[in-house]
């Protein structure tokens, strides 16, 4: 059966990962019809949602799990996967279990988590630091200290794309690294506006402001262009989620040799467990429904998880598989995951609306140098106060 | 039995009343000309008769049938437009047969009717041309032909000649006259060319602001206009008007001049009120012959306008401009003093208050 699958994985590493899904699905005698939408989630989500609303749904679609699909589920537009989840014992195999919780509404499971992506990474270019004549830093403080040398060597210390989710994501990373998990939880989970306006948070904003200075001269749009600056040694480093890993891999670089990755900015080794999940819009055609379930099962199956996550550079959603072929960075991630140093992802705790507002604020701060960290903090606190 | 009869016709465009309680009866075979200044509602009336405008009130009967709500094509009328309105993409033949085809007239019948019309109008050689390849006069003839083939009783013409140059206009005017003499159907003809009106009409209806001012034979309208508007409107050069009064019974007095109205035919007998004394420039007699007229006076030629066949002399009587049409060969020059005279019986006198003929 033909099953159209929409997603926004169009960069080199991502596309290679998707191909693993497709390969596996086609092997079952079905046909994966690829519906890639370029431009990132911001472009793709409206298309996906309007198609679901418009009564012409695709067979399956990527969405960040979390609150994005809440209302669609509530409106009864999504296929209930509880039966196959029970059958496959997802609750037992999915690690951390929080991932499955995000797929659960009223006790029913509506999505398949496929990977864990964590934001808390900085990627450093060995070449850049070699050119600048300094050692590759091992944490955020060293990194900022070496910035001058990088600038002197004509490098951009910190690569940063212009899209709002990137600056907002970097903020989250700095938030956890500098402010610690408790502060983060207070603000993001409990929506504590006072904490958001407090002195601890002020430090975070100071650090964020410092990072802004380091990124001057980084004139690229897309995240992978920024990653490319790190790959080519034009930039010292980039704060980016673990999906950046895929780009290094496609470029044939080796962790530890050509680049270094520091989880939690080397300060606070913790990773968030956001990630991608697939939803299956309801469909009248029983054949399609069967195919949908087939795909759902497939996606969480062991071999597919391994193949997919190796290409994607993300962590698998099940703890019971062998990822020994994974590279350095991924291993680091797996260790942290195993140690339970995890936190929820922003998408799981904040509504799309609030995330959007924060993104707007962060990207504005990042680009408008006349905005002081204090001003940004005030605006931030206001958003948190309104958050639902 | 009347051919077209219009009863209490009202037509409004929004709040503008264009035709107001208009009544008109036209006999079979009559040639009626609607004449009037621009915007007085002539075309509007014609369009109402044709059914191209929906009347606001009143009725229209054609051949004693109430057609007020009929479609234009069912009224038994044919219409010829100022701009010809030929279908540019069809040949002449196509133009002529379009209406018949629409009415599902059999093919042979169409052929024979087209042939007959073409013969009458002498456009046989043109049948396979398109309108763009015709001269103005030929187009006009095709437009007439389009009405002709439909074998209707009533022909409506909306200024059919006004797009043509003077010479062609004169020729086609005669042709239309000939056509009417041949066909004997009813024709309603709109124009604002007086010469056309006078030469073609059995009766003329002079319109002003949606009302018919006078409906009479051309001669009557020319000689006995019912009001000052009609008098002024008809005739070129237009009628002279002297401002004065008739306080002395039977005499018209303006300034120091008195004109005896002895043999003037009053409508209701003389009145003693301020009046306009109207007199046509072409009825004035000059030179020696003037002395034999009931009224004569000496005047000075102020402007002399030779027009070839005639000469128009501008002079004044009691400081009121007075034009005189004299022969083209006359030798009056600007500044000359000369004698003019006329017969007050040929005058038209209007009450100054309501401007009606007295």
């Amino acid at each position, binding site marked *: 059966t033909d099953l*159209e699958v*929409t997603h926004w994985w*169009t*960069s*080199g590493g991502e*596309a290679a990962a*998707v*191909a693993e899904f*497709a390969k596996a699905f086609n092997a079952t005698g079905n046909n*994966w*019809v*690829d*519906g*890639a*939408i*370029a*431009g*990132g989630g911001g*472009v793709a989500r*409206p*298309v996906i949602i*309007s*198609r679901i*609303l*418009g*009564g*012409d749904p695709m067979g399956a679609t990527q969405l960040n799990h979390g609150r994005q699909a809440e209302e669609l589920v509530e409106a009864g537009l999504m296929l209930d996967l509880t039966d196959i989840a029970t059958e496959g014992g997802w609750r037992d195999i999915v690690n951390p279990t929080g991932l499955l919780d995000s797929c659960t509404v009223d006790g029913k499971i509506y999505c398949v988590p496929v990977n864990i992506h964590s934001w808390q990474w900085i990627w450093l270019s060995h070449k850049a630091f070699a050119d600048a004549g300094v050692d590759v830093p091992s944490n955020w403080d060293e990194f900022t200290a070496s910035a001058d040398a990088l600038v002197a060597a004509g490098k951009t210390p910190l690569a940063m794309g212009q899209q709002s989710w990137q600056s907002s994501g970097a903020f989250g990373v700095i938030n956890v690294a500098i402010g610690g998990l408790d502060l983060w939880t207070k603000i993001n989970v409990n929506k504590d506006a006072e904490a958001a306006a407090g002195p601890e948070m002020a430090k975070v904003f100071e650090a964020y402001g410092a990072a802004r200075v380091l990124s001057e001269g980084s004139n690229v749009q*897309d995240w*992978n*262009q920024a990653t*490319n600056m790190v790959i080519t040694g034009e930039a010292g480093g980039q704060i980016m989620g673990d999906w950046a890993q895929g*780009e290094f891999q*496609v*470029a044939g670089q080796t962790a530890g040799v050509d680049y270094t990755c520091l989880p939690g900015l080397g300060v606070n080794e913790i990773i968030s467990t956001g990630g991608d999940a697939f939803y299956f819009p309801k469909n009248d055609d029983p054949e399609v429904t069967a195919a949908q379930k087939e795909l759902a099962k497939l996606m969480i199956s062991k071999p597919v998880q391994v193949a997919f996550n190796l290409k994607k550079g993300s962590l698998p959603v099940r703890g019971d598989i062998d990822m020994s072929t994974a590279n350095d960075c991924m291993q680091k991630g797996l260790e942290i995951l195993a140690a339970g140093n995890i936190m929820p992802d922003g998408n799981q705790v904040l509504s799309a609306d609030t995330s959007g507002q924060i993104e707007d604020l962060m990207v504005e701060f990042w680009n408008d140098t006349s905005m002081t960290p204090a001003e940004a903090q005030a605006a931030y606190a206001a958003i948190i106060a309104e958050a639902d | 039995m009347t051919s077209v009869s219009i009863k209490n016709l009202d037509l409004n465009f929004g709040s503008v009343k264009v035709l107001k309680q208009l009544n008109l009866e036209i006999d079979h075979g009559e040639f009626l000309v609607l004449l009037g200044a621009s915007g007085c509602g002539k075309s509007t009336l014609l*369009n109402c008769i*044709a*059914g*191209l405008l929906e009347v606001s009130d009143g009725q229209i009967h054609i051949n004693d049938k109430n057609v007020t709500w009929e*479609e*234009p*094509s*069912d009224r038994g*009328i*044919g*219409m010829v*437009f*100022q*701009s*010809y*309105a*030929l*279908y*540019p*993409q069809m040949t002449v033949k196509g133009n002529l047969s*379009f*209406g018949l085809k*629409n009415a599902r007239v059999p093919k042979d019948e169409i052929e024979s009717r087209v042939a007959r019309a073409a013969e009458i109008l002498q456009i046989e050689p043109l049948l396979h041309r398109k309108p763009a390849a015709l001269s103005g006069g030929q187009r006009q003839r095709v437009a007439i032909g*389009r009405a002709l083939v*439909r074998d209707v009783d009533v022909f409506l013409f*909306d200024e059919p000649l006004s797009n043509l140059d003077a010479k062609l206009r004169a020729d086609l005017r005669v042709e239309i006259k000939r056509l009417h003499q041949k066909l004997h159907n009813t024709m309603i003809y709109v124009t604002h060319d007086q010469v056309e009106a006078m030469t073609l009409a059995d009766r003329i209806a002079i319109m002003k602001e949606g009302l018919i001012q006078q409906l009479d034979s051309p001669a009557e309208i020319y000689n006995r206009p019912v009001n000052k508007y009609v008098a002024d409107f008809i005739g070129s050069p237009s009628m002279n008007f002297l401002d004065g009064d008739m306080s002395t019974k039977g005499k018209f007095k303006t300034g120091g001049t008195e004109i005896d109205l002895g043999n003037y035919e009053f409508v209701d007998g003389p009145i003693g009120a301020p009046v306009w004394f109207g007199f046509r420039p072409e009825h004035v007699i000059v030179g020696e012959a003037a002395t034999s007229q009931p009224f004569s006076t000496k005047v000075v030629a102020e402007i002399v306008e030779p027009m070839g066949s005639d000469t128009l002399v501008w002079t004044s009587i009691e400081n009121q401009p007075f034009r005189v049409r004299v022969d083209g060969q006359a030798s009056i020059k600007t500044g000359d003093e000369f004698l003019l005279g006329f017969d007050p019986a040929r005058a038209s006198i209007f009450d100054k208050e309501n401007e009606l003929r007295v």
Partner: protein
Amino acid sequence: MTNSSSNTTVEMTGPRGAKPKRALSPRNIMIYGVLLVVACYYLLPLYVMIATSLKGMPEIRLGNIFAPPVDITFEPWVKAWSQACTGLNCEGLSRGFWNSVRILIPSVAISILIASVNGYALANWKFKGAEVFFTILIFGAFIPYQIMIYPMVIFLRELGLFGKLGGLVLVHTVFGMPILTLLFRNYFTSLPEELFKAARVDGAGFWGIYFRIMLPMSIPIFVVAMILQVTGIWNDFLFGVIYTKPDAYPMTVQLNNIVNSVQGVKEYNVNMAATLLTGVVPLVIYFASGKLFVRGIAAGAVKG
């Protein structure tokens, strides 16, 4: 003696005939100078697109964008047309091209047909209330599409047309209607009303007059409408992305996908080739129809 003075000889001294003109008068230099500069400004992007699309990536990275290509390569064109990837689809623009064609033809035909009949009804068969609807329609031309996107999704869903070709045709017909109707109405109004009257006297009905009299006389305005619709629909992005699905994406959406599917570095040459390929249909139409379009715009847009 036809010409009263043809045989008189006249002595002629001093200026005679046309005043001599210097081709390089200051005025001409200024006018053509300005025009040339302006023309350069307008042509520059086209030139850059073409030049870039013919270069290889190394040349782009080293040289500047205004330099003519040294090593002309058609690789980017081939890639843009048939190899560029979005996700797993590596069919380039070609698929989008055919989708666009498939969308274009019915949309243009239906929207023009409906708008012309509307315009005709408005111009010649005025009925009560027609003007009111027309005014609403014209106002509608200025309503930002964003307002209507969402209700349209629901509307199409209710009609069962969402994601179908028919839905997109409907969307284009609806949103093209105001300006096209205006165009047709103005044009039909400018045709002599007497023709219409004559046809009515001849017994032709609503459709008879439309097809037999009006249509044959309106070829120019149909051409203008066609140009407007072809370029408008071809260039549409918003409706294409929202009301279709990936395998029916029109070329503009495909273009956006290709340009935004960055794999490592931006392949500017491929992007430019893709851009040119997408622009080629409307460009050809404009260059080919040039004068006609200008005349039509003048007839439809500028009155009084």
